[in-house]
């Protein structure tokens, strides 16, 4: 039956063996609460310094136990991706699964080793608790279940992007960044925790969470529709944007931010241009308002405004001085970074909405501003910053000295330029990098080897150029010397032969303003038969004409505009780089603002009439 011999009742004395139980002491476990184990899942702790209020914990909580509470007084900075929201936990619903801890991008929330919740109302009168770093009863308990490498659920690594190797890209203008394929894009899009920090940081408030989600759901048309809600220049911004969204991305606090810019590019490239036009035209009213608006400059700002106004039924006429549209995005950014055919797609979509662009027309020469004022209900000037500044140091007027903006325009326009054997670039911004790498390519193509020296006033950390631009420039053989101040252009038998520079002790004064100080005895001569100045750009406002310049209000060298980008003249608006300084996505944001203000002005005038 079984090996338990239950019939063995033992002898008469059998019960005596139970006497040994008297020897044992009773099993007594101390009743007061003991500290829980090292990774116990007790009540929440939240380090408010580390927490950025991204509300990912609220999303992953399966019992909807977390409410985000706005706490005034906490730091709030959309550009860095910091909100003054903190999670409050409803312990009537929480099941202590610690998924919020494992998915917290900054690792600020953790569970303490405190599990006793019997307390009187005085210390805690509700299940709804706002955890901070000193625990539920204000008694500091050390951390229990906290973020650990193994349990971290945040997808920290970014899907790496295939880029052309330096040797492969040095002698041509093919696009370097290959762009994601479908699989890579879906994996990259799946990393997004939908916190919306990018939406707040983007100058034009792009709905990045929505289009990233659409990409992940492989619904490309929805992604394009979400993008076109705020940015008709998405092919361009997908390649050259200064991507402030990625600096604000909450995954970026401990890992690599989501490649939001490249995802936008993937979405735009994935949908056929014809279909993009139909999507962009959605919501365009059938009627025409009969209002006519003139826009000077077919750059991002001008064309975005044109796009919005056309979608509101107005008739838009754009005047462009050059032979093609795009402004700085075509003539300022080389094709290896911003291919022309992609820019044309953006422009064609805008034109498909009925925006007429008149090329090779220079306002101030072919048409005067006052003529525009009579013929149109409103005028928007968005001419950007096209004149390159010169250092005007000794010898700067020699013809061996060029301006980066003009050179880049000529290369983009296909005009042949003199390819120097050796060149020296002055300037540390993206334009300097662009011209350095363009000349490097031309040199490699013509002479087979690259000889470019790039000097700038600032030290390398304060270069205005993107970090990857600097990295790629160095890979392509550009020698970068930081903190060098240009002194004099060395002239030999009529032509430039080098640049003399002094060491800069770059000191910032207490207000953070940059006051370059030279150390004269550390002097270098950089050989080069061409010197290119890429130090800054100014707006060419000659087109306004003397009378209008006098009539308008100015603000430290730029047109004074209200927040609707309207100048002091009620019929004239101004937008883009010439008002805000050089940045593509800010120009797009300006385009929207100007269009909204113009549209509002036209409606008010209509009601008033």
């Amino acid at each position, binding site marked *: 039956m079984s090996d338990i011999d239950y019939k063995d009742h033992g002898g008469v004395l059998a019960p005596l063996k139970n006497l040994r139980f008297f020897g044992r002491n009773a099993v007594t476990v101390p009743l007061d609460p003991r500290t829980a184990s090292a990774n116990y899942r007790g009540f929440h702790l939240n380090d408010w310094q580390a927490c950025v209020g991204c509300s990912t914990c609220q999303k992953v909580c399966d019992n909807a136990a977390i409410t985000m509470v706005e706490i005034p007084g906490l730091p709030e900075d959309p550009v860095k991706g910091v909100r003054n929201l903190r999670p409050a936990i409803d312990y009537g619903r929480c099941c202590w699964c610690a998924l919020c801890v494992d998915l917290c991008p900054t690792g600020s929330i953790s569970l303490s080793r405190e599990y006793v919740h019997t307390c009187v109302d005085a210390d805690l009168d509700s299940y709804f608790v706002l955890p901070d770093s000193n625990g539920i009863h204000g008694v500091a308990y050390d951390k229990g279940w906290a973020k650990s490498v193994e349990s971290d659920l945040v997808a920290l690594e970014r899907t790496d992007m295939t880029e052309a190797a330096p040797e492969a890209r040095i002698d041509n203008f093919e696009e370097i960044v290959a762009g994601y394929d479908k699989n890579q894009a879906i994996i990259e899009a799946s990393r997004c925790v939908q916190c919306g920090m990018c939406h707040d940081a983007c100058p034009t408030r792009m709905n990045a969470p929505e289009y990233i989600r659409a990409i992940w759901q492989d619904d490309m048309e929805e992604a394009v529709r979400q993008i076109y809600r705020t940015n008709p220049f998405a092919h361009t911004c997908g390649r050259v944007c200064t991507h402030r969204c990625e600096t604000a991305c909450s995954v970026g606090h401990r890992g690599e931010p989501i490649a939001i810019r490249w995802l936008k590019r993937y979405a735009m490239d994935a949908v056929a241009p014809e279909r993009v036009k139909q999507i962009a035209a959605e919501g365009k009213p059938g009627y025409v308002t009969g209002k006519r608006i003139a826009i000077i400059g077919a750059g991002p700002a001008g064309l975005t405004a044109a796009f919005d106004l056309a979608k509101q039924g107005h008739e838009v006429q754009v005047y462009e001085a050059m032979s093609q549209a795009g402004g700085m995005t075509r003539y300022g950014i080389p094709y290896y970074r911003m291919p022309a055919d992609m820019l044309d797609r953006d422009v064609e979509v805008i034109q498909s909405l009925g925006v007429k662009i008149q090329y090779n027309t220079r306002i101030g020469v072919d048409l005067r501003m006052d003529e525009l004022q009579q013929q149109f209900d409103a005028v928007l000037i968005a001419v950007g910053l096209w004149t390159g500044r010169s250092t005007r140091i000794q010898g700067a007027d020699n013809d061996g000295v060029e301006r980066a903006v003009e050179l880049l325009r000529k290369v983009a326009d296909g005009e042949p330029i003199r390819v120097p054997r050796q060149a020296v670039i002055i300037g540390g911004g993206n334009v300097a990098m662009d011209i350095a790498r363009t000349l490097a390519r031309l040199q490699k193509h013509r002479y087979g080897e690259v000889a470019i020296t790039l000097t700038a006033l600032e030290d390398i950390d304060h270069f*205005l150029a993107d970090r990857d631009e600097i990295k790629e420039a160095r890979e392509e053989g550009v020698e970068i010397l930081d903190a060098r101040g240009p002194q004099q252009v060395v002239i030999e038998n009529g032509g430039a032969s080098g640049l003399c520079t002094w060491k800069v002790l770059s000191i910032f004064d207490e207000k953070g303003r*940059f006051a370059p100080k030279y150390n004269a005895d550390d002097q270098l001569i950089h050989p080069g038969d061409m010197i290119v100045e890429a130090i800054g750009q100014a707006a060419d406002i000659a087109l306004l004409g003397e009378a209008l310049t006098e009539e308008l209000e100015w603000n430290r060298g730029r047109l004074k505009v209200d927040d609707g980008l309207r100048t002091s003249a009620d019929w004239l608006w101004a937008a883009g780089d010439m008002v805000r300084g050089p940045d593509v996505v800010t120009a797009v944001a300006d385009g929207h603002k100007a269009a909204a203000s113009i549209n509002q002005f036209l409606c008010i005038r209509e009601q008033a009439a």
Partner: protein
Amino acid sequence: MKEGESSSYDKIRSMTRLKDVLEVATSFEQSARDFYTDLIPKVSKNFRWLAEALAKEEQGHYDLFTNLSRRDDIAEAIQAEIERPVTDGQFADAIMSPDLGPHPDDQAVLQYAMGREHLAMSHYRSLADGTEPGPIKDLFAYLANEEAKHKEELEKLYYETVHAGGV
């Protein structure tokens, strides 16, 4: 700096009383301020603020020197200032100071202003070196120091206007 003014510097060399030296210095500031104020209408409006700012700067200098001259303890006041000499950044030295033609642009005006400051500073400095130690030498050193400070201010403005516009 036009020639006329450099001769007046020789006049200053021979002076002994602090008050007289200050008066001459104040007159230089006054002429600079008047030069900028009448420049204001001439320049194009989009950078007229620059001319106005320079005029205001010179006015500030003018007031500084006038109420300094009104005080009687000029020597002690100057003493305090000299302890913190401002090193000359030489940032503007390389930049040729053009003669302001009919349509100067903002960069030209700034270059011209920095050129004036530089000349004034170097004049005062040479004057300070040329006199024996005493209140007059301290005054010249003080004036040189003020001009150097002023020049540094303009250099910052020059950097922000010309150099910082890059993408």
